[in-house]
């Protein structure tokens, strides 16, 4: 060891424990957030490419080979553009709103287990924490719509707020079913409860809840076919119609980060997280393919992230009253019924969660 490394190690050892903890945790946070931001940037590129191919178009193909540098060019453009604050807007809240919508989408990653051992905060109430944080995302939308002091933005904010509240309830009930099956609120424990073959993952025993969760996830992130909050043909662009430059960009990043988060949660709660789909197959028992790893989590997440884009290119937009009907009158009864079925089954000791 050179003198320099010894010196650095000694300095590190001399720091108070609290400070060392803070430094290590901060580094871990950056280790999660920076890749996440890159994923979000390239998610926008993937969206344009995927939808373009579905429309038999080329998609972005000018910046770099195959348009691969497009997200960087977009980011630079938005950073350089002026953020215009409307004259009658509430300046403070107008600037605060995009930030409020971004923070929960990033903070929820603290409890997401990325592989068997690494999770930033392994807390007991992980599922509740995620639910609480995603329920705070609606403030960004409401405040953005209100602070703009514009009718279109306000209408978009109102639509989006009532939609998010409605679908949050269905989502919460779907999660109740998961935690009954998993027997824990800790996300790592929930994944471990799904150990076995592909058929023992929760998507099969909780199939109705899985469907409700995925569709509510689309609605919760204001994605097509539930993007009535934006509704270009009716209310221009909804809550962010007055935003320009990077303030708009942050709303954009928040939306995509939320999509990635919902994909991750779907995988963790219903598709065995980092568990391998080849786990139960006898011939592969000791091979690397059957081991749980981050790769499995990532590839399953990619599939659900693709589903978000797929549905956008496939379905026409719902009418607003039908969105509300689906949330309140279809999804909530389905989830309640399935929780009842699950409760009876687990009381009678039948089924996978006995």
């Amino acid at each position: 060891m050179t003198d320099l490394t010894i010196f650095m190690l000694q300095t590190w050892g001399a720091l108070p424990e609290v400070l060392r903890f803070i430094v290590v945790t901060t580094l871990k946070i950056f280790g999660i957030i920076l890749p996440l931001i890159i994923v979000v940037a390239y998610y926008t590129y993937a969206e344009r490419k995927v939808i373009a191919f579905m429309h038999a178009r080329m998609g972005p193909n000018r910046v770099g080979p195959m348009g691969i540098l497009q997200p960087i060019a977009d980011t630079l453009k938005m950073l350089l553009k002026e953020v215009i604050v409307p004259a009658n807007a509430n300046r403070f809240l107008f600037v605060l709103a995009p930030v409020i919508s971004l923070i929960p989408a990033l903070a929820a990653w603290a409890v997401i287990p990325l592989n068997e051992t690494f999770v930033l905060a392994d807390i007991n109430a992980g599922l509740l924490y995620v639910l609480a944080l995603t329920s705070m995302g609606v403030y960004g939308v409401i405040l953005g719509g209100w602070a703009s002091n514009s009718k279109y933005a306000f209408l978009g904010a109102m639509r989006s707020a009532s939609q998010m509240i409605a679908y949050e309830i269905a989502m919460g009930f779907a999660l109740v079913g998961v935690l009954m099956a998993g027997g824990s609120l800790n996300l790592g424990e929930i994944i471990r409860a799904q150990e076995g073959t592909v058929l023992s993952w929760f998507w099969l025993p909780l199939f109705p809840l899985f469907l409700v969760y995925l569709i509510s996830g689309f609605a919760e992130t204001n994605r097509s076919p539930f993007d009535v909050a934006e509704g270009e043909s009716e209310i221009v662009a909804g809550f962010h119609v007055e935003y320009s430059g990077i303030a708009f960009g942050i709303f954009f990043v928040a939306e995509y980060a939320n999509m990635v988060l919902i994909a991750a949660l779907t995988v963790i709660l219903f598709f065995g997280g980092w568990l391998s789909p080849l786990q139960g197959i006898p011939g592969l028992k000791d091979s690397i393919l059957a081991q749980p790893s981050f790769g499995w989590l990532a590839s399953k997440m990619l599939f659900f992230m693709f589903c978000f884009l797929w549905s956008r290119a496939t379905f026409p937009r719902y009418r607003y009253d039908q969105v509300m009907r689906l949330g309140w009158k279809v999804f909530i009864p389905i989830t309640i019924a399935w929780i009842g079925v699950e409760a009876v089954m687990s009381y009678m000791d039948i089924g996978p969660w006995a």
Partner: protein
Amino acid sequence: MINGILFYTFATVLVFAALGVISSRNPVHSVLFLVLSFTQSSALWLLLGAEFLAIVLVLVYVGAVMVLFLFVVMMLDVNAEQMREGFTRYLPLGLAVAFVLVVEIGYVIGFKIPGSPFSSVPEGYPADYSNIKELGAVLYTEHVYAFELAAVILLVAIVAAITLTMRKRPGLKKQKISEQVSVRREDRVRLVKVEPFKE
């Protein structure tokens, strides 16, 4: 030491946010200050190790109740000046109530009556202690009747609120969504085979 710093930071922000609720001119700002004070008090609960209560406070109050509050306050045209009219008139009464409350809290915590649960600092629980499990165990065994009773009362309140606001107006044109959803292509589109026109 870290706990102390965190506690005083959160507590200071909490007090200022609570003052902001009653002193800000814009009702929307008041609601937002209330949201801030809820999040701060949930942080205080986290410091006490009551993670379930802290997260449920955020989930229920910040995530649901205050969103509806904000909704209503933004939609209504609340005149803040009109609501502020009685401020000086009610100030002495408010101060008196606040004084009684402060004395009571101080009496319980500050004077450390021997034998009361506040006379000594309660021992902390180990890190793997799950207060969700404990709460659930108590709530569904010992206090199950009170719990069910509360649920029934809430249900009655919901039914009452809905009946109060439900009005049947004659001649109202309504969309029958179930009919709209169950429509088939055959009901709407008729494919006709047209013979090509020939001279």
